[in-house]
């Protein structure tokens, strides 16, 4: 299904969010598809659930996301604010040029801790 869906131009049909908690303080949110004004509330819910369960830091895996608009950026920044209040942080995982472009153009590449892989991001959270 992946290949055919991808070749059909990234409709929001392909969108998915999954959650995991590798340790009590760290919430992991993995997103697939396009994050826009329609889909971003689902990312927001997944992030909120982790905070409510007691997480202080989040890792948001954007490695399968190729579209990120201001609605998604707004939610990531709001999550970062919340995490910092709790003494934690929000780490992003991506190597996608389009996502890097959006983060750079908005200056948010300097605000978020960005990793190329999930392992790298998890190591950073453990080191703290």
């Amino acid at each position: 299904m992946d290949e055919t869906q991808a070749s059909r131009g990234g409709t929001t049909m392909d969108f998915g969010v999954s959650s995991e908690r590798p340790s009590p303080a760290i919430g992991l949110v993995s997103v697939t598809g396009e994050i826009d004004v329609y889909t971003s509330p689902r990312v927001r819910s997944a992030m909120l659930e982790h905070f409510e369960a007691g997480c202080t830091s989040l890792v948001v895996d954007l490695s399968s996301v190729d579209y990120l608009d201001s609605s998604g950026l707004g939610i990531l920044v709001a999550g970062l604010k919340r995490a910092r209040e709790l003494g934690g942080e929000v780490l992003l995982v991506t190597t996608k040029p389009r996502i890097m472009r959006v983060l750079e153009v908005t200056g948010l590449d300097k605000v978020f801790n960005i990793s190329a892989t999930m392992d790298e991001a998890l190591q950073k959270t453990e080191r703290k």
Partner: protein
Amino acid sequence: MTTPIIELRVPCSPEYVSVVRLAVLGLCGRIPLSYDEVEDLRLAVGEACASSVYRASQVDSNNAHIQVVGAVDSARIVLEIRDDVPLAPETESTEEDSGLEADFDNQQFRVSLMQLLVDSVEIGEAEGGGQIVRLVKNCELNG
């Protein structure tokens, strides 16, 4: 604006913004823009639509629509994104009771993002009271 060549009208609600983005992608197939330029334009159009959707949600505008008019020639692509959501007087943004405020996700940020992505952004009031956003992306010839 040069001769309008495509017109698209969708409901002003979140689930239709991706329809507009796909149509713009189709239109961009007709002009000499690079992959990144097309994606920048697509993102800018998405922001303009998100702005309309946000304003509609603030005033409970269930029957609002977004209309997109696009014109291309060899030198540039011009897209006008127009809605029929009454322009509200400036108000303080109201806090939601949600616990994860997207207060960063505001209209001014959308405008700044559009300005970073395309060559010209003009925002005005449409006849009848809605918003018009006019985006221009210049094409590098033989680029």
